[in-house]
């Protein structure tokens, strides 16, 4: 329950920052660019996590970074679910030639190391214009993560659909004369969809860490603060003894990942006892 609370807190915070930006409320996180004190002021009662080189409050930057991370992880999840689930279901249901093509696509993608694949996509997609829309900052990041991460869920759904295909309820649906689209999307998918939820509650952590690494390598959000960019700043600052920016970003990532990890495990144990990890 505590974990769920922590996750909800992060999501609420991200949503709240969106609202605040939309209505132009002048609250802490949206005012991250403002000077809150001297350059590199250590943590004090005024600035709980101190300030960075420009005198901006680290606490505000960290809170703002929540929005970036949650957005990236959420959009990446959505993209990979939208690609992976239908492809997996179609491959598992029809088998034959369609199946072979889809299996070929995902075996190809999965034979390139994951992080290298994300990096290659992110490098190429960055600052490209598609249909008059320029992919800047986080858009390129979540596209890169989303377009490369659907493989796992596609494989999972395909396997599960193959198992379910010959069950009675599917045969019954066929005998009613249901269309194939209806069987796949109204009968089969709802029966395997809990796997998607379990998979993504655990994958969310990987997405957040991937965003941090991409931002750190300079492929992420450039103008607004994110956790990865904060860690990148901290790389130089640490040798001067400025540890608070690093600590703030680490703490923020740690609690979110910990909560998601525990929550994902609990979810798996209750929804799918077969996969239980003792």
């Amino acid at each position, binding site marked *: 329950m505590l974990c769920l609370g922590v996750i909800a807190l992060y999501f609420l915070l991200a949503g709240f920052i969106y609202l605040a930006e939309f209505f132009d409320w002048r609250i802490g996180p949206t005012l991250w660019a403002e000077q809150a004190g001297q350059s590199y002021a250590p943590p004090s009662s005024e600035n709980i996590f101190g300030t960075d080189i420009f005198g901006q409050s680290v606490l505000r930057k960290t809170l703002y970074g929540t929005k970036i991370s949650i957005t990236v992880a959420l959009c990446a999840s959505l993209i990979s679910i939208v690609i992976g689930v239908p492809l997996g279901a179609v491959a598992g249901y029809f088998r034959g030639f369609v199946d072979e093509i889809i299996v*070929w*696509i995902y*075996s*190809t*993608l999965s*034979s*390139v*190391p994951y*992080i*290298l*694949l994300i*990096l*290659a*996509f992110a*490098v*190429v*997609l960055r600052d*490209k214009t598609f249909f008059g829309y320029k992919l800047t900052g986080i858009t390129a990041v979540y596209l890169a993560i989303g377009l490369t991460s659907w493989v796992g869920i596609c494989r999972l759904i395909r396997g599960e659909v193959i198992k379910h295909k010959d069950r009675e309820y599917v045969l019954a649906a066929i005998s009613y004369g249901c269309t194939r689209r209806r069987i796949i999307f109204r009968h089969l998918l709802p029966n395997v969809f809990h796997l998607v939820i379990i998979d993504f509650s655990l994958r969310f*952590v990987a997405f957040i*860490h991937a965003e*941090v*690494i991409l931002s*750190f*390598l*300079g*492929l992420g959000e450039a103008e607004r603060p994110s956790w*990865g960019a904060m*860690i990148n700043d*901290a*790389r130089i600052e*640490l*040798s001067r003894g400025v*540890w608070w920016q*690093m600590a703030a*970003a*680490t703490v923020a*990532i*740690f*609690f979110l*990942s*910990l909560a998601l*990890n*525990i929550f994902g*495990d609990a979810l798996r144990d209750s929804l799918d006892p077969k996969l239980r*990890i*003792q």
Partner: protein
Amino acid sequence: MTAYLIRRLLYTVPIVFGVLLLTFVLFTLVGGDISIEIAGKGATQETIDEIREEYGLNKPLFLSWDSQFVNHFRNALTFNFGRARDREPVIDKIKRGVGPSLALTMPMFFGIVIISISLSLVIAFVRGSVWDISTVIICVAGMSIPYLSFILFGQYFLAYKWGLFPVFFSPELRMAQYVALPVLIGIAAGLGGNLRFFRTVMLDEMRNDYVRTAFAKGLTARRVLFKHVLKNAMIPIITRVVLAIPFLFLGSLLLERFFGIPGLGYLMVEAINSRDYFVISAMTYISAILFVVFNLITDICYSLVDPRISLE
């Protein structure tokens, strides 16, 4: 056996084709013409044309024996990846980087595997105890700390603050000196997830009847664990271990960047910063080939450890 091998080898052909197609689509179709970027600001049209000529970017994309599509395949299959931004052939750069990368990743990898497998056996034996629960808690906590934080804090405290290790790579250091700290950090960061995985594998094995029989016969715990359980848990272990080997060649992007070790990860980071598509494309292709090869080795290993799996 031979028939299986041939069939299995044939199966890798579409995968290699797919990887080549992927790199072509990514770096040539989506990536686009980078000759203007290579030429730099204020370059004349002639320089740009010369660069286009050299990289073959002025040729048609498809539908010709001399098209970019065909050349991409030809070059990749002969391991000729052209020149990087600094005019050095890409393949030379990669060859130079393999050594330091392996020096870093090999001890790290074997450290993680040996420690986590033996620890997981012990923990599976004392399952349910305080030790077991606290290990799981530490593992999950370790998995939640970002990799970057492990590296930064490790570098800061162990090398910079306490001076136990050199902070950066420098050519006059011996390999063992500059590799020690990154290896240590890598093991610390990778242990959580691996230990947790192997613990699950071992626990699944421990519940089997043959374990009870072995204990009932009066065999020692050590013999049961290492002779019986470990042998039967070999399949998932092999999958995880052998398939991780191709990644060793890639080096560790982040560790090499932080410690300035001139391996393949460092090369990759440099290539990202300068948007050097040739290097990134070559690295993607080579690592995919390695992965395909090791996938094949895994399948052969299965039949060696488990006679029930026949190569039919």
